[in-house]
């Protein structure tokens, strides 16, 4: 039996999925959840084989939820309309279903997932899929991070600066610092570039948080932040600062 959970915020959408799945023999639906928080908890606790996942949901959306998981189950996305998702999934997803979908279409997607699960192929590419999604993504307005057992939503307005640390990025905010498993490149692409500047290979700052730019050595600069801290500025970072601040 394929242990399956459904995550979608609309009861009718879940009931349709449930109804279709009831007609497939090898499926056992072990839970239904209406938002990203509950979904995250359920995936961690129940360890399902397969998840049908909506993208637009309360609290955490489907992508934010997946970002916070260490072990990914097989995912079939179920979405109404998402041009980025469609693009991203075309090559990599186990499958994606566009609402409304038929029983046959669902069965087809399920067969694909079942094959992957029974071959116990763990190398299936959801991580890849998420990063593809990131490349198409427009600017983000919040970031979901895990702090211990809790989930914290960081609004980008609250970010002061970011520092890369190996495979992670440390996000410094008004109320503390948070680690996120992402690349600096990702943040450079997805934070609004009118408010954030990549000033160095390892640093990105919020423009409003810059106190002043100081000459450090000949041809070399540092930024003094509003909290008194200084961070280095690379040559290309300095050029970016110049062009966006017009000096």
């Amino acid at each position, binding site marked *: 039996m394929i242990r399956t959970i459904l995550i979608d915020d609309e009861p*009718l*959408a879940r009931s349709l999925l449930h109804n279709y799945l009831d007609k497939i023999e090898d499926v056992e639906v072990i839970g239904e959840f209406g938002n990203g928080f509950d979904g995250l908890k359920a995936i961690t606790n129940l360890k399902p084989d397969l998840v049908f996942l909506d993208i637009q949901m309360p609290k955490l959306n489907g992508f934010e939820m997946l970002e916070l998981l260490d072990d990914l189950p097989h995912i079939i996305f179920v979405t109404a309309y998402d041009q980025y998702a469609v693009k991203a999934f075309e090559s990599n997803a186990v499958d994606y279903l566009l609402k409304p979908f038929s029983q046959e279409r669902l069965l087809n997607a399920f067969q694909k997932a079942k094959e992957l699960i029974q071959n116990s192929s763990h190398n299936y590419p959801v991580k890849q899929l998420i990063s593809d999604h990131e490349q198409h993504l427009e600017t983000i*307005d919040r970031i979901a991070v895990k702090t211990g057992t809790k989930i914290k939503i960081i609004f980008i307005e609250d970010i002061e600066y970011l520092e890369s640390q190996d495979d992670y990025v440390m996000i410094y905010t008004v109320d503390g610092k948070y680690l996120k498993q992402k690349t600096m490149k990702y943040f450079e692409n997805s934070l609004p570039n009118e408010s954030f500047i990549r000033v160095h290979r390892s640093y990105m700052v919020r423009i409003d948080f810059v106190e002043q730019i100081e000459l450090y050595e000949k041809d070399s600069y540092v930024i003094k932040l509003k909290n008194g801290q200084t961070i280095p500025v690379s040559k290309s970072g300095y050029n970016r600062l110049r062009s966006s601040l017009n000096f």
Partner: protein
Amino acid sequence: MIHPIANNRRYLVIYSIFWTLIATIHGVFLFNFYNASIYLTIVDSFIFNLFYAIIGLGLWYAVKFSQMETNNIGNLVLNHLTAISITLVVLLVFGFYSVKTIPVINEGYSEFFNSTLIWRILTGIVEYILIVLIYYLLMYYFNFIEKINLEAELKTNVKVAELNVLKSQINPHFLFNSLNSISALTISESKKAQEMVLKLSDFLRFSISEKPDTIRSFSEELDNIYTYLDIEKVRFGERLCIKKDIAKKCLDAKIPSLILQPIVENAIKHGVSKSIDNVEIRITADCFQGFLKVQIENDFDQEIAKVKTGNGIGLQNIIQRLKLIFGRDDLISINGENGKFLVTITFPQNGIYDTNNIN
């Protein structure tokens, strides 16, 4: 450009009066200073000025041919010197021989004509200048009017185009999610599925058929919003609560069509669909002193969404539309505090019809 005088009866009458006046002055001169008889005076003034009036109509083409924008000064002077010479020669030759054919005008007319020749040439030149000036004035006046009309037309076209862009579009997310709900209902509750198909059709028909500048009654606009909310209610169930407080006297008020739709959609998108808790959308309306005031308020989850008042494209579009239709930007206020998002719009009721027939 067509002949401004020959093709306009009113101008033709004025032109005739003008020449009658000139002919009278002509007569007074001949009678008083050249001692012509009454009979000669009348015949001479009538014939010469009739001829000049006819030639004068033709001078329009000389003016049209000599527009100041397309000719240099040399050309202009040459054109007018040619025109004035031809005019005077034709006028004097034809005038002289015509008058001579009239009986009772005796042999003495030739001497009389010679003695008045200089005077005739001088007045002819003055009259020529007068006519040409009037033609130039008319030409510029008509060009000016045409330009103003063209500009107004252009402005209207631009406005319609802008309004078209700003008009709320059917949100595909809403559409496909609704279709999915219908798909689900066909399995369990076919009656309800049919109901929803009908509502969705009503809503789509309204949204698609509306012209962007249509002004309609507040009650029609409200009905459409209620249809929309009914559909969303099927999707979200308990999570969506709607509270209405509409003053009855406001139902006939006028309002640009579909202008509230994006606000209600925003309330769903940022309030209901992002929150786990039940979210209330409150619609209130009141009328006072020639204004309809509509407020749409919704709760939102402060933990997961920050409010950006007026940054969204939807709200920007409404602000732009209000500006285009009413020419004011103080009609909308947006407020997001303490987990409540409130949009207030005041619609002036006077003068709202002016834009009704924009095209």
